[in-house]
């Protein structure tokens, strides 16, 4: 496979404006779902077949007694060796694009066992449509990236928290940024950079961001 593409999500620069969450819906023609205020900024509550990119909000108190509020703009990580694809029992239900490395769910995912695919995913991303049984998730904006446009989420990011590019370039940038951040945040790290194409940088324990932030 070619080196393919990658997305860097630097949570230290994310202000949780949710431009990415909305841009994803706009580009991919996904509906706004009916939600309720349940006592958090996070809404919808979870990713779904209609929500492929979701900003997760996690708050608490730091050792110095001051609050923290971490934002995790979650999406499919587009694994280098996708466990969901390995788990798939139907040919071409889940495919990986040779040029970009994007992991694509097709309509025949309807024939797969959702529980198996979900549990195979270290990040618990795949979601199934209740009626059609088709599974859906982020496509890395496959129709955009194969036409020289960055994914819609990256395009919408006002602070530069998200960058799109060739995988080695993105991994270099991630390593450099982590080194910078470590001077202030000793726990700063890139999450599973060798295994995924959507690389998140965090400044604290990934579990504080989201249960399944890291594999």
């Amino acid at each position, binding site marked *: 496979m070619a080196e393919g593409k990658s997305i860097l999500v630097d949570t230290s620069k994310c*202000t949780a404006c949710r*431009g990415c969450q909305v841009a994803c819906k706009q580009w991919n023609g996904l509906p*706004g779902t009916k939600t309720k205020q349940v006592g958090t900024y996070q809404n919808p509550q979870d990713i779904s077949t209609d929500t492929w990119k979701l900003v997760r909000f996690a708050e608490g108190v730091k050792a110095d007694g001051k609050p923290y509020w971490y934002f995790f703009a979650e999406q499919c990580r587009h694994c280098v060796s996708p466990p969901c694809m390995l788990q798939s029992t139907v040919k071409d239900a889940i495919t990986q694009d040779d040029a970009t490395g994007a992991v694509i769910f097709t309509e025949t995912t309807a024939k797969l066992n959702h529980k198996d695919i979900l549990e195979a995913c270290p990040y618990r991303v795949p979601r199934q449509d209740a009626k059609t049984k088709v599974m859906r998730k982020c496509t890395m904006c496959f129709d955009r990236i194969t036409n020289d446009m960055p994914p819609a989420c990256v395009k919408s990011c006002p602070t530069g928290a998200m960058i799109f590019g060739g995988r080695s370039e993105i991994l270099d940038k991630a390593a450099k940024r982590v080194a910078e951040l470590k001077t202030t945040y000793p726990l700063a790290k890139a999450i599973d950079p060798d295994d995924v194409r959507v690389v998140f940088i965090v400044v604290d324990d990934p579990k504080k961001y989201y249960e399944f932030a890291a594999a």
Partner: protein
Amino acid sequence: MTNHWIDIKNSDCILIMGSNAAENHPISFKWVLRAQEKGAKVIHVDPRFTRTSSKADFYTALRSGTDIAFLGGMIKYILDNNKFFKEYVENYTNAAFIVGDKYSFSDGLFAGYDPSKRKYDKSSWALKKDENGVYVKDPTFQNPRCVINMLKEHYSRYNLEKVSAITGTPTADLQAVYEMYCATGVKDKAGTIMYALGWTQHTVGVQNIRTMSMIQLLLGNIGIAGGGVNALRGEPNVQGSTDHAILTHLLPGYLNAPQASQTTLKEYVEKLGPKYADPRSANWKQNYPKYAVSLLKAWYGDAATKDNDFCYSWLPKADEGQDSTLLTMIDNMYEGTVKGFTVIGQNPACSLPNSSKVRQAMTNLDWHVHINIFDNETASFWKGPGLDPKKVKTEVFLLPAAASMEKEGSMTNSGRWVQWKYKAANPPGDALSVGDIIYRLMAKVKELYKKEGGAFPDPILNLKWDYADSKGAFDPLAVAKQINGYFLQDVTVADKTYKKGECVPSFALLQDDGRTSSGCWIYAGSFTQDGTNQMARRKKEDPTGLGLYPQWSWCWPVNRRIIYNRASVDPSGQPYNPKRPLLAWVDGKWVGDVPDGPWPPMADAEKGKYPFIMKAEGVASLYGPGLAEGPFPEHYEPLEGPLPKNPMGAQMSNPAIKIFARECDKFAGCDPRFPFVCTTYSSTEHWCTGAITRWQTWLVEAQPQAYVEMSQELAKMKNINNGDKVIVESARGKVEVVAMVTTRFRPFTCGDQVVHQVGMTYNYGWLFPTDCGDSANILTPTVGDANTMTPEYKAFMVNVRKA
């Protein structure tokens, strides 16, 4: 903004206070984070830990409405520890001026207060002048009545313990913020302040901003790259609306609105441009008569002549002390004296304080014309909660308007950059641009006056109204050119002749004899002499490397990207900060940004000028005797506050605010029925009252319903769980919303009192979605800043209980 958005990246220390920039001005954070990446410190001071705080190097909380105490403590820190930029303060501020003998301050009140009028006699605060009318100075600062010494005395009371008892901020945090920020009081460091409605929307709003301006002057942070006093404006063109006189006390370009006592043009312009005898002060406002006459020529064209005072008598005049601001207008409507109401792009039934009063007031109207892109709670007020449509007599006309991307025109951003934009799509159905609606409306009024006559027809029949294109449609370019201004005859200035019909390329060329026109003098230069639209420029050269981008769009005044920039150089014209030179005097001319006037630097004894050219005396005011409530900002509690007394003195709240005394306006400070401080704000996902964003499903999905944020401690005390429905109630009304229990709000310890605070967005209303909850402004009080009448949305008292 004195500076502009991109310039934030040049800062060494960014104080965000009175603002939730990351949420409400998301793009600003591109530049904040860029500065931070280069090593700048970001400080956020806010009652609530927000998405802005999450990115700050240092966060601390203060109780809503206590910013002057917090900043007053910073002034004391600067003076006690000699952190001020001495040369800047000596030369560029009024620190050396002498405060007059009548001035005094005692127990919360300045000299000259008349309690019966709730007004000060400001002459009591005058600075000393010599026999020529020039201010007396003591550059040695030995005179105890020197401004700098009076400043020190005034803020000596703002010690850490006292400030902490007011703000609820721990003293260690106060000290930390003061140290971090005041490290910028040296030549080669810049500190900036980003503020927004969190400062303006208080009974002491103007004084909040003035306190910070004084700090910026003491630290030498005004006029420099990476510094300034920066108001983040929340609507893409709200700066433009202010420039063009949306406020009741102004004409375009910040010229004062005429008063009834000013019966002739001469009397009017004499008040506009003060005289000052020191030749080293440019005193730019002495040019204001030229701008006033050019404005009258723009409005009345050939009808305006020298012989008829350029039709000055046709302008509406305000009565002595007349207040036409929103709160008073609604009060008049409530009383029944206002019969018609035109609302353009606003939703006052949700955006103004004490919404129930506003909605009731509207039932007294005969007619209401509403121009908007969607229906909202104001257009549909007659079928709102508690109102019987059968009993509301008001006739409502809803005119569909074009959205911003459906029309051509200019937008002026917070940094004063005027950017021309083009139409992306036609508006749907019968919708028209607001310009088109206003143009047609006035054309029709003129036609009716011509046909039927009427009272005082001259100003209407003679109004210059030729802004249609060849097809008869509204032409925004024609309006923009009129705003810029024309030469109406050939004019020769300094051996150069400008032809009749050409655009005026700079306000320096405007005349007071009727030979030029300009609809807003500060916009003169937005077109070149040959009519090229400078606002449409899109060149990306950046010769200074500071991000000024002088050929991207155009900015007022005269494309000067950072105003007061003569204060960025020393008196000989050399940049204080050689690493980020904004301006330099090189070989007899200025290099860099467009300077604040062409004159040589101040050290030139013959031709040099002081840097603050918009002040008559040429220097900035640490002592400012012009505001309603005093020459030095003083901490007063909000109209509704939690404390039994003001720890700073006997005067509880701002002595100069207007009190509305109707039953529906009742307020309740330190009242056990309403024990918790409440503040209101917006969120990233909705815009203002949500009148536009609540129709957008992806945004409603992200922020679907009204909520109240509160601490875990308060929730426990009131037996409230996260996600519970709760009632929030003030002296004026109540709303049902969802409780958001969070670690991001904490109780304040103010002296020996624990103060709980809650916060709500004002993004919702009853109309749509039907389950989103009604406006937080049902709770807010009818009271405004003593100078501007900007409502106190940010600090008032409520109770919270389980629904």
